[in-house]
């Protein structure tokens, strides 16, 4: 399984491209994920006491919980679709390193989640009456840092639960604990930014998220091939 790095990257790009292309053609997953996200945002608005809590106070948590749930629904199908027509066996037989398979799936999932997040953000502004003025670059930065790490772990768990019984329940049970650091960080930083605080104040969280990303992306790349060792 030793191959040159450029070959691995190229194979990963092909796999990610394949996933995104089939996603673009069908659009069912994307549309349902976006509708799902919009629904959670709306429900959040009604799941509060309007006389005690203003929508703005709930806004960062509502946004990030929405993104987390939308990501789980996206991840749960990342490998499940490959089981149809035995496509996974074809992928495993392809002469590419398993690391490339992981990276391809990871990049595909990451793009998908980023697209959902970038559609959810304007909806969030609309429903929660927040102003992104000056906060947008910081929110994009924290969104990237928060998403990368848990999508990496989520990609491993997606492969792991695809063939397990009760997979639609097993994935969130395994993955949600891993969302605590990214979600806590993202919600805190978003709240600080929306209150007009400078990004440097949140440097501690950004560092923690960066270390989390590096740790779990590396670990996921290293550990993913052992799922299929036969």
């Amino acid at each position: 399984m030793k191959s040159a790095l450029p070959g691995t990257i190229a194979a990963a790009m092909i796999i990610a491209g394949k996933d995104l292309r089939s996603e673009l053609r069908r659009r069912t997953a994307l549309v349902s994920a976006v509708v799902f996200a919009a629904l959670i945002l709306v429900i959040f608005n009604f799941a509060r006491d309007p006389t005690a809590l203003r929508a703005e106070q709930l806004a960062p948590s509502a946004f990030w919980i929405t993104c987390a749930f939308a990501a789980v629904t996206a991840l749960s199908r990342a490998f499940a679709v490959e089981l149809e027509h035995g496509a996974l066996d074809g992928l495993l037989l392809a002469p590419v390193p398993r690391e490339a398979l992981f990276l391809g799936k990871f990049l595909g999932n990451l793009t998908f989640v980023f697209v959902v997040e970038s559609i959810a953000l304007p909806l969030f502004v609309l429903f929660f009456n927040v102003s992104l003025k000056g906060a947008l670059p910081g929110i994009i930065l924290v969104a990237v840092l928060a998403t990368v790490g848990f999508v990496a772990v989520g990609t491993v768990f997606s492969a792991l639960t695809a063939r397990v019984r009760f997979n639609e329940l097993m994935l969130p049970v395994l993955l949600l604990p891993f969302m605590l650091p990214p979600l806590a960080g993202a919600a805190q930083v978003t709240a600080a930014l929306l209150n007009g605080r400078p990004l440097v104040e949140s440097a501690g969280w950004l560092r923690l998220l960066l270390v989390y990303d590096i740790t779990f992306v590396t670990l996921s790349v290293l550990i993913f091939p052992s799922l299929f060792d036969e």
Partner: protein
Amino acid sequence: MTSSDARGAARRALRAGRVLTGLGLLAVAAAYVRAIAFTDIEAVQGPAQKIMYVHVPSAWCAFLAFGLVGICSGLFLWLGDRRLDTFSEASAEVGVVLTGLVLITGPMWGKPIWGTWWQWEPRLTSTLFLFFLFVGYLTLRRTMFDPAERARYSAVVGILGAMLVPFIHLSVYMFRTIHPRPVVLNPEGPTMPGSFVATLLSSLAAFTLLYLGLVTMRYGLGRLRELREARHVPAA
């Protein structure tokens, strides 16, 4: 190793586990007699403080249990020895019981002393997530039949889970430093009298012995079950 050798080893582990568990239970009982009858009552907290002699040792053993799950999972992926997987499962099961004990005794102490059942404090939250991870790990094992696949998959979860715990600890720590709460009391107290420390340490030793006994017993049982399954279903 032939299968009868392996069965013999598994039975020996089971027997040793029973003996260790018996000794561990006796030691826990002895440590508790010491804690209740022969250790002074703490001036501020009163009798509630006695819970510490169960709470702290079980927390310590729970973290030990999960650390060993992580290490054995890593070693399993490296060496491929099924016994490491059986040990991880045994340790995770005992770990669930121990984290459960921590999460039950903690609020019992917290309500009279802190005035609240629960605090979003780094150690509490880490223990709670340890419990979630253990339960997720064991649930995953229950949903899978193929032993080789189950061993690989759960090793992956074990390693990732062990790596997550420090991040959770750090996140909750940062969460609280940004939003400080009026914490009632430092759970450790600044200093402890020598007799308290001695009781705590003897209780710690007793719980560690109990952990080792339960894990060894569970490991022996797990091995026996595997060997019996292997006899009925020849390995592919």
